[in-house]
């Protein structure tokens, strides 16, 4: 049995209570959500916080998925499993279900949360890639109120985010745009393993042309990052295999993988290309499959 160092523990009863505790205890305290990243690090003694503030009782307050016409809002305590099972979410953003199917295993998904995933800021983290792909905004709350940052602002480096010591992530907000769909592709060495490389894509069509598109990659750089060059190359073009290929090549060019036990940098670069193509292709297929229904829906809007 791997055992952590001594730690004080308190359960927060509300977001304000949690923030109050963070303010009082300062940098020696850490929030624990699902615990699936933090506890393994504590057991390996890679992390030894003096205080743990358990926010699982805030699931009532922060565990939700609200799908509104222009925006989807997801609470930070929403569990992987809830993201996986939400039909409403899969309807607007099928990328979530694609990703959740291949994140960890059911035991981890039962507890692990959206907030914990994003705040862990692991460069291989899948939900971060999903949120990057969808251009999500992060709502951070502290003693003096809330602020909203983009994913680009949120990530400051590997394992480092814009969330300050006495703050917490409470929600992410994702804009909903018409005639769009999304997809997620991941290659792993084994089910439940972290990605060798993952790629998310989101595409919005207008009259058969790409109105906008975004691609987000995981495990090929210091953070999951959007690829503006890919978006620029896709906008205004008609979807085609040739175009996906170009986009894939751009994705491969614009990432910075390193060789490790999961694979060589060369192979990862190849995957960035291959998976970008696949995710774009699947996104467009999904829009077209929904075509008739979505068309009506869009006209009504």
């Amino acid at each position, binding site marked *: 049995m791997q*055992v952590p160092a001594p730690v004080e523990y308190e359960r927060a009863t509300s977001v304000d209570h949690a923030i109050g505790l963070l303010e009082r205890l300062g940098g020696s305290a850490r929030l624990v959500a699902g615990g699936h990243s933090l506890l393994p690090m504590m057991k390996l003694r890679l992390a030894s916080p003096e205080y743990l503030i358990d926010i699982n009782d805030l699931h009532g307050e922060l565990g939700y998925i609200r799908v509104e016409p222009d925006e989807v809002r997801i609470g930070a305590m929403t569990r992987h499993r809830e993201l996986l099972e939400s039909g409403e979410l899969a309807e607007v953003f099928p990328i979530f279900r694609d990703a959740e199917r291949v994140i960890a*295993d059911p035991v981890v998904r039962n507890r692990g949360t959206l907030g914990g995933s994003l705040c862990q800021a692991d460069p291989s983290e899948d939900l971060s890639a999903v949120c990057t792909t969808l251009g999500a905004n992060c709502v951070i709350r502290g003693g003096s109120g809330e602020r909203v940052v983009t994913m680009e602002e949120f990530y400051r480096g590997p394992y480092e985010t814009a969330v300050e010591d006495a703050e917490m992530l409470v929600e992410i907000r994702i804009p909903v745009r018409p005639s769009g769909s999304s997809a997620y592709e991941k290659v792993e*060495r*084994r089910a*439940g393993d972290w990605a060798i490389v993952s790629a998310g894509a989101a595409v919005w069509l207008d009259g058969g042309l790409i109105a906008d598109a975004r691609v987000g990659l995981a495990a090929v750089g210091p953070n999951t990052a959007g690829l503006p060059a890919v978006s620029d190359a896709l906008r205004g073009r008609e979807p085609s295999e040739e175009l996906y290929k170009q986009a894939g090549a751009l994705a491969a060019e614009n990432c910075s993988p390193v060789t490790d036990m*999961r*694979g060589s940098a060369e*192979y*990862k670069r190849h*995957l960035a290309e291959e998976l970008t193509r696949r995710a774009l292709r699947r996104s467009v297929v999904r829009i077209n499959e929904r075509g008739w229904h979505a068309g009506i829906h869009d006209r009504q809007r």
Partner: protein
Amino acid sequence: MTTTDERPAGFENNDHKPVGHGRMLRKEDPRFIRGKGRYVDDVQLPGMLHCAILRSPVAHARIVSIDTSAAEAHPKVKAVVTGATLTGLGLAWMPTLSGDVQAVLATDKVRFQGQEVAFVVAEDRYAARDALELIDVEYDVLDPVVDVRKALDPSAPVIRDDLDGKRNNHIFDWETGDEAATEAVFASADVVVSEDIVYPRVHPAPMETCGCVADYDRIDSRLTLWSTSQAPHAHRTLYAIVAGLPEHKIRVISPDIGGGFGGKVPIYPGYVCAIVGSIVTGKPVKWMEDRSENLTSTGFARDYIMRGEIAATRDGRILAVRTNVLADHGAFNGVAAPVKYPAGFFGVFTGSYDLQAAYCKMTAVYTNKAPGGVAYACSFRITEAVYLVERIVDCLAYELKMDPVELRIKNFIQPEQFPYRTKTGWLYDSGDYEPTMRKALEIAGYDDLRKEQAERRARGELMGIGVAFFTEAVGAGPRKDMDILGLGMADGCELRVHPTGKAVVRLSVQSQGQGHETTFAQIVAEEIGIPPADIDVVHGDTDQTPFGLGTYGSRSTPVSGAAAALVARKVRDKARIIASGMLEVSVADLEWVKGAFHVKGDPEKSVTIQDIAMRAHGAGDLPEGIEGGLEAQICYNPENLTYPHGAYICVVDIDPGTAQVKVRRFVAVDDCGTRINPMIIEGQVHRGLTDGVGMALMEMIAFDEDGNCLGGSLMDYLIPTALEVPDWETGFTVTPSPHHPIGAKGVGESATVGSPPAIVNAVVDALKPFGIRHADMPLTPSRVWDAMRGVPRPPV
């Protein structure tokens, strides 16, 4: 001799209760399924303390100083022990299973990352672990030897400067076969194919890590040790020799064991630390290693770098096989193998083929890595041997453009050639290979698969079909040839029938999940007709069982299983004499029908084994010269090893865009001779096949250039899950062993041995369009992608 019967049709109810061999549920499972197993970590004793071990953070360094004062000042710490303390007790070094010595706690240098440096005994596990951080060790870091190929360079740092006069990292050279005869065959052969083949370092990774509870009674000078041991009797003797404790004052108990796979054969420093901890504190001490400690410090397996060569005629008659092996043994030579077999049973690299010559030369070296080389489900290096021959035969098929099945069948040892003496001296007891191969082909639908493959290839899809055929040598002894540190590899067994006809059988081997409590009850039931439910199996406690060498190398059924059958026959012989008295006829006039004797020609006149048991313990007269009671004891010394065989076929699909391998189908036809409980056999086969998927596709203990272990957690050292494996398709043939009393051959390791080559052969076959003849394990997507681009890389 061979039969090829099917699994009984319409076998819905698995829980038949055969009085003897046959399919039945495992007697031990109710307690496991209900969480009532009792493992070492479940042992709680009053006043028990906890031990934690400080390990080296670096691969090679001289210890300059160790300061334990802060740890000793921790309020919950009871003792801190270093190599210096142990030197005072004469316990700093201990013998390994292969004639080397290993540091219990480092005294001079640390020689691998994770090596034991000091230990703490404290009131609880947490305090013990916390106190490790208070020990201050100053290291003078030395260059490590990580690349085994450079271990013998004259400039390589000498790892074992503790050994008198040691000036290099050489451990041993070993050879088998006839070098000159093999060279002659190679020189005149039409075709010679050679290939560099690596079997990477892997780890048994049992679900339960290693650990023990040591309880030393100072008044009585008695040591009780609950430990994760696959060989409690051998361990007891070794503790007596190492620690100088009298053997009759030591009791080793292996309770339920959560998997061993060879990893629980050696004695690890941790066990000795706990014993010392108990001696110095006078309290029971528990030591349970954590997952990282298990993966980085206990016995690894494999790590052979092999060059395989095969010589053949142009029409596919295999003439000879030759191999050169560089074996990485880590920092101490801790191979678990019979003393006269430093390379285990690697000599069976001649496979299942009738050859004219064979030769192997091996060099073993030290490196700055964890010691071991355990019989990880490989019956002593047979895994490496079978992988080598089955890979090189496929390379030959590739060069000859011959179907790999046809090539194998053409070269099989023929049934009439058994017993067959191989060119490396092994005497294969029995075998009938072609029916086993044909059965696998039939289950797989081999010809259709090849057609499908051709169609898919035409569409640019990557489908591969891999075939492997293995012969294993399992069940060590015989004792005259095989011993571990002087202890002959034989096994005892004791059977007592109680007055009411229930029985207890006591084994010298120990189950780590193989289902001994069921199988051995069935073996005895078959011989004396008492139902398995009425037979208790006692094992794993040196105070309760006769001496024997334990469970590994698939030896339980071949050795201890034979002992159980023979002891039951001995009891039956006595029962026959008592029956003759009861029925008032001569023994020659009695006929045995399972469970009862009756008078020949008069089935009405009969006594059951239960009647006889009561008589044996009763007040009535017994035939002249017969003592009361109905029990017997024997020690079985096998006359030869047994040689199970099998034909495995694997079908894989590879995603051409991502290079991910999916095992679509796997057909395993095993011949382990007489089948005692087919359900348990299938369970063993399923486990081994899953293991094979792990080794072939994902498992490897890797090191960086500084000698840091990169496989220290199950996030880094991957083992397969249900999602990586297909529905196993199993079949069997039965070729009994001629010398085993019930013809059984052992099956515990067959699937682990046979599946890696089948899977690798399938992947390489799928990559044929890329001109690939060989690619090394583990075939992770990245490594398969390398192969697809024509640059397959060795893993080390």
